[in-house]
């Protein structure tokens, strides 16, 4: 807890920009909703992008696959793991638009690993490693992987030159070829100055809107947390903006001042909704980005998460499919919160539970009945000693309480530090095109016209 005390002290004396945190983008409701095959029933597998730990197993970053369907005889067990042959600060993942492939990034080595999870999701295969992001863009720390049709839009955290947080987005096609880069704005737009920092990406096609948030560069997120918080100058270098982009032109149109490292972004997707929500790590607030009566986008803080004075450090968030509820994990106090978002202008916390000594990612199933939590934030920011629990915990959610379902101890199983989670399901009752019946077989669907 010494680090926590230092952190609180630092926040008290430094500025609003003390320590940021990474988390993010995890669950079924938070995938790019425009890909195919969202799993709206029971997921079969949870894939966990896991940071390697020196001396633990092979020490490598790895994709760990866990059986998550209660009907499986392997339910709650690790059934597969793929090491990538090194430690590059495994962090986040994202599916391609067809959900056949999972792209996973390393925040330190800037490598991107492409896993085939469509052919046999119980045993993913590493099929490609993309290493040219720094050379092609000058950016570093690929964080968010957001599916666009035929492409992957990548939100980066840093750059190769100064290693601070000035960065941009990059686009690759689904074959892994670089297409384009887009710097985060550093100038003024409508009298608000951009800081050039990046973090999460969230798209709303119906509004031609792309919203981004901001965090920090590798000189902060790859630095020992205890040292970082004693460096007042370094503590000033965290993101304080969100940016609304025109998705078609990929040009920034509006910058919002959102102090305190706004991290994960979730759009309310039901028809008629005009808002997205985020949480600020350092100031512990929920922020709403919403169209006003005149049609302009505005950002405003709408609720505190825990007691901001105690620096709970909200990390990952997970919105329900109907956008009426939000899970929020706070890393420092190991608490999982549930907010009622029925009135997004006035979120209300209706439930909380201590779910671990440190908790980071939170992912829920589409139906909201299952909630998964992992523990690791960053290799150099995780807690020390007995508080350095490393786990995946699965819960049932009945609308009133989180009930433990199963748990994987990643330290005991010599796996590493579990971070981002993604779900897959077994392909069944499907054949390949080469198995199609002969021409004289009856048509199942009948002629369309």
């Amino acid at each position, binding site marked *: 807890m010494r680090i926590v005390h230092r952190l609180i002290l630092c926040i008290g004396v430094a500025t609003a920009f003390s320590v940021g945190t990474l988390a993010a983008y995890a669950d079924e409701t938070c995938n790019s909703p*425009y890909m195919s095959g969202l*799993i709206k029933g029971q997921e079969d597998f949870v894939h966990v992008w896991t940071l390697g730990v020196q001396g633990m197993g092979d020490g490598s970053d790895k994709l760990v696959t866990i059986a998550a369907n209660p009907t499986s005889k392997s339910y709650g067990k690790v059934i597969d793991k793929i090491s990538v042959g090194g430690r590059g600060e495994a962090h986040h993942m994202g599916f391609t638009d067809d959900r*056949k492939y999972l792209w996973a990034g390393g925040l330190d080595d800037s490598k991107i690993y492409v896993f085939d999870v469509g052919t046999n999701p119980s045993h993913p295969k590493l099929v490609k490693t993309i290493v040219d992001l720094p050379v092609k863009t000058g950016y570093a720390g690929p964080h968010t992987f957001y599916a*666009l049709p035929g492409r992957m839009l990548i939100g980066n955290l840093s750059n190769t030159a100064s290693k601070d947080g000035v960065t941009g987005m990059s686009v690759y096609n689904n074959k892994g070829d670089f297409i384009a880069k887009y710097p985060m704005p550093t100038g003024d737009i409508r009298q608000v100055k951009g800081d050039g920092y990046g973090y999460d990406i969230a798209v709303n096609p119906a509004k*031609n809107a792309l919203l981004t948030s901001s965090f920090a560069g590798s000189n902060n997120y790859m630095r020992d947390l205890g040292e970082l918080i004693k460096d007042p100058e370094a503590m000033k270098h965290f993101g304080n903006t969100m940016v609304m982009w025109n998705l078609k032109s990929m040009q920034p149109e509006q910058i919002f001042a959102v102090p305190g490292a706004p991290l994960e972004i979730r759009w309310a997707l039901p028809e008629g909704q005009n808002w997205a929500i985020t949480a600020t790590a350092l100031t512990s607030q929920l922020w709403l980005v919403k169209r006003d009566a005149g049609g302009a986008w505005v950002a405003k803080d709408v609720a505190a998460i825990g007691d901001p004075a105690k620096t709970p450090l909200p990390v990952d968030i997970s919105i329900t499919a109907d956008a009426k509820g939000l899970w929020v994990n706070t890393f420092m106090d190991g608490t999982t919160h549930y907010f009622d978002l029925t009135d997004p202008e006035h979120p209300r916390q209706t439930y909380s539970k201590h779910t671990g000594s440190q908790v980071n990612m939170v992912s829920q199933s589409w139906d909201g009945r299952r909630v998964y939590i992992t523990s690791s934030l960053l290799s150099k920011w995780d807690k020390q000693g007995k508080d350095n629990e490393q786990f995946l915990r699965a819960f049932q959610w009945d609308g009133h309480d989180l009930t433990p379902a199963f748990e994987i101890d990643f330290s005991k199983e010599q796996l590493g530090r579990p971070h981002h989670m993604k779900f897959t399901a077994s392909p069944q009752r499907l054949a390949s*095109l080469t198995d199609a019946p002969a021409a004289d077989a009856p048509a199942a669907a009948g002629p*369309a*016209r």
Partner: protein
Amino acid sequence: MPRWRGAAGAAAIVSCAALSSFATEDPGKAAAPRMEFVPLAPGSYTLQKIQHVADAVLLDSTGHSVRLAALTQGKITLLTFFYTYCADPLGCPFAHTTLAALRDRVRRDPTLTGRVRFVSVSLDPTHDTPDAIAAYAGEFTGDPPFEWRFLTARSVPQLLPVLADFGQDVSVDVDEGGRATRTLHHMLKMFLIDARGEVREIYTLAYIQPPVIFNDIKTLALEAGRQAPSAADNRR
């Protein structure tokens, strides 16, 4: 804000296509694309160069072999995959209804005369013979003439490299006995290709917004106009 609703918007129940492949997935109601913004003016933005289209040999509706490159270069091309008996309201019928409306709008724009073609490639060469696609195409290729080519392949193995190049997934439903049926699953995609054979935009269901697609076509036409050598250039 202007609001556009696709022709299939009222019939939002998905039967087979447009969603793929996971047994525990509950497709439920697919959402017709929504559009709640004013599209950018043509030429005010640049479309990404996503990939070059690989060549292949396919069959046209008369049974003759055609090179795909001949139909993805020289004009701005909007290419999609379909199969003639697809009944998904938000699958192939929706795509072709949308394309037919776009065709009519392109026809009315004199700056696009002779500069745009549509290409529809069957996902099921086993059943979609040249005769079958010719019968299907009749509804879309009328008078005045507009180049809308319907293609198939001699065999599935000849089609598979084309699907792989475009990243077009397709799978086949099986019955209770494990036998493949004629119900195909595929993610609806339209590919906008410039006159040099580069894919410049891809529209999946949420992005099939006809005013945007039309402006994207116009944007490529304006870009080609800027790239074309002027008469003065030719004289030099």
